[in-house]
């Protein structure tokens, strides 16, 4: 599953200036760190739902993605 996230899903997010890193997957909860454009995306939840669907299609297993945003300092500048 980690390989799938890193090699199949992550490149697609990178195509939109995003970035995702796999942290762990325990008890049906997959923790992912989101950086780049993903870190400030208003609709990241839609993307994580899509990732959950793709994982279920691929592995027949439901996971819940816990998104951890790592927003760089400069996005906080007003």
């Amino acid at each position, binding site marked *: 599953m980690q390989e799938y996230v890193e090699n199949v899903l992550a490149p*697609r997010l*990178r*195509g*939109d*200036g995003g970035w995702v890193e796999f942290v762990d997957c325990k008890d049906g909860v997959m923790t992912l760190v989101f*950086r*780049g454009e993903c870190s400030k995306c*208003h609709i990241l939840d*839609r993307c994580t*739902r899509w990732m959950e669907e793709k994982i279920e299609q691929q592995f027949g297993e439901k996971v819940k993605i816990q998104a951890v945003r790592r927003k760089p300092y400069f996005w906080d500048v007003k």
Partner: protein
Amino acid sequence: MAHVKVVRRSMRPEEWTDLRFGWLERGLILDREEIEDLQIRDARQVSENEYVFDDPDYRPLKKGDLYFTPDGTDFIRGHVRIPERMKGKQLYLHLSTAAEMIVKVNGKYAGGLDPNRERIDLNPFLQGDDLEIEIEAYNRSKPDDERNPMVLAKRGCRQIFEGAYLVTIRENLQSLIYDYILLMDIAGSEYFNEDYRHFLYKELSHALDAIDFDTWEGIDEAADYVQRVIYDNTDFKGSGDVALVGHSHLDIAYYWRRIHAVHKNARTILIQMRLMDRYPEFRYTHTQAYTYETLEKYYPELFEELKQKVAEGRFEPVGSMYVEPDCNIPQAESLVRQFLYGQHFFRRAFGKTLDNAWLPDVFGNSWIMPQIMKKSGVDYFVSNKMSTWNDTNRFPHNNFIWKGIDGSEVYACVPPTHFITWNMPSQIQENWEAYQDKETGGQTLSMYGYGDGGSGVTEEMLEMVRRFPKVSVMPKTEIMGGAEFLHRNLKGNTKLATWDGELYLEMHRGTFTTKSNIKKMNRMLEFSLRETEILRTLAMLGGMEYPADDIREAYKKVLLNQFHDILPGSHINPVYEDAMADYHEVDEKLCALKAALPMDGTLFNTLNTPRKLPVFVEKEDGQYVRHGKHGTWMQAEAEGLSSVTPCAMTGEEGWITIEQEEQGLHVVTAQADLHLRQDGSFASFRDCDLDREWVREGCGFNQLHLYADNPGVYDAWDILPNYKDVSYPLTIQEPLHVTCLDGSIAEMTVVFATEKSTWKMILRMIRGQRGIEVEHVVDWHEKHRLMKVNFGPDVVTRDVVCDTSAGMIRRDLTKNTTWQQARFEVCHHKWFDLSETGAGLAVINEGKYGLGLEGGEVSLSLLRSTIRPDIASDMGTHDFCYLIYPHAGDAVEGLVNQRALEYNVPLSPYAVKMPEALRSVLNASGLLLQAMKLSEDGSQIVIRLSEQDGRRTTVRFPFTVRVLNMLEDTEREASEVAVHPFEILTLGIDPDCLRA
């Protein structure tokens, strides 16, 4: 009396007007029919015209569904029957989207939809009662330039489908809305007369009083009021004369891969052509031969239509170049090829040679540009950034003459405002007010149109143009083409001021350094292309075929990656991956083209100057390691354009003594007496030949500095002037120690570590050589850090001489003026040099460009670690070298440029024969052989020579040659050619002359 701030809670009259202005949109759609028979298929684009589909077939698409996936393209198809009540009326397709859509209706390209346009005129495409709709849509999630906050909120990888509709609209209300967009913009803009703005607010409110916002009665009355009371009022006056040039800037890669630019470009062109159908007065300019090439290849139907529009003079190719390249880092020959391949495309496709360079977004422009333009048929130059982005000084001209390093002059326009505007009155007025050449330059240039897939001009922008003459306070405006603007206002204008120097952008100084590997590969391939062309040309004279198409394609791929958001490093991670893949593909192709040549154990010198430096020859069992490869150092002192048999270096015991001392190592050779610190920096560098010291007391010399590098949102682009405020100590893991010592070579190595990275610096000395090579082997995992190496030489000089690749530029080291202060980080090419009368010190690099100037010190920028747009920028391993090269005399007398070419251009292990007559002329010319190739038409050999020392000379040939321009057109024939300082000379020679 204390001041009490009044907080107003009731609505101001202007707010009431503004609120009702917003309500007008609600009444726009008169009737609508939802298109329910829609299907969608998710895909991901994997090359220019290839897609991988997520699902085996289409699925139904309903309003409220999520559509698009990350980095996704969607294909949508649908069918609708026109309801009876709508037949015979003006029909539109209405679809609100954050994506970029190309729409076909009944098999014809009907137009485009995106955040800036949500309606397509259907009537020209109606065939009976049924409509077949096909949509190709790239999901737009780019971060900037949308004016509408609603759009910013919408963007993201997954969108909610808001439905597609057949609609009719209240055309009179649409017209009134355009009136209000225009007039409300003026009313809200401080660029316009305050009294007029009060007048507008008052009268616009009165006009709206006529409208019933429930029944939509009173629209015509309101429009009539606006005409009579506002447009017909001439009591208020404006001034100015503004040329409006429709344009859509297109980054070939940035927040998207170059494969996506194919669709973005086609959509942009389609939309502009459809606007031309409706607005006969509309003219549009479009750059980059590459974008036309992709249209021709992947959208031939649109290309055929485009050719017609070009022939009519309504769609105007501008720019001349293959892409809009970065204009700091590419070598002169690359810039020549940008024009050569660009102009040859425009000639073939449209029968035109363009006379302008159109580079609105590039990050400054090298001083070598005017000559290259002039000799490529280009008399005019347009570039916006210096006027709107400089962080310190206001660039003093907008319409002017730009004089280049060799004295060539072109007409130049740096428009006062941004190259992406949406043609609002306030933007036009701002342009006029910022225009500095009102008295001398004629009209000012205002480009209008969304960029980067925002797809240029909109119907609204053209409706504004039609209304501008009705508004008495507006400057005079005129739609025109780019070339027309330049010809009318600049050509022959004797009042124009002259700017003699580089067009340095006081911003984006980090782009000389970001993405180190891209810059390294670009440099390597520029020279590899040169080598391949020279070798295959010589082989052709011996009867071998010249692989013109292969070389041209390889060149074009390198030129494509010189685009101004690829080579500078300001792009997302997949763009980097694409560029590196392209570079490796080109490298393999060039290696294969060279490998077809015979080898006889000799090495051929493609330079027309003698070589003096030892060469590193890769060998699997070699005892030395350089750039991670085993090999051996050899002597190969070849004459220019000649072969040499390399020989092993002769060793000599005792050529060097290295002793440990308290602060590091004391190293003595016949050339130098060095005291090296434990960190690899030089405490003292006594030059035994010149009997002088090179290190200034108290200064670092070859000293690494790790700085905080936090420029903000423009992370990959910028280095701030205060970057030295915070620096971090480097932990020495292994102090400087001897790692290699024999009769020829000595290497001393120091290893540093930070919490995340390791950095190995190797000082390499070779017997008999005065230069000291420094290799850096790095595993780099920093964030927001800049690594520089400082040189504080004991040289009394106020300037540093920098290589431009086609001549040298002197840059001030003093900080007396704001212009000098702003140039704290500059771009140089293969070397920089600090000299006094009689001696100097150069540092020659093999792929670094950023150079910090700080008083008497200079610093070579080595690596950055930015996180936007690419989180992973520059992360990983790096291996790069430079040569510290002291010399007698100044940079010219010290032959620094020749040594720098040697350092960058390897000897070729191929056996080729150089015609003696040509060899002797070129070697004695004092010029540098920049290129040798078969001409594009295959009729002659093209030789390009470059004068780089700033001296005047004459080249005499034993046969007649053709003097060509850079497009390979013959200008005259001669056997003697006079050359002026920094001139680039292009010659055509009949191959039979050389065979004889």
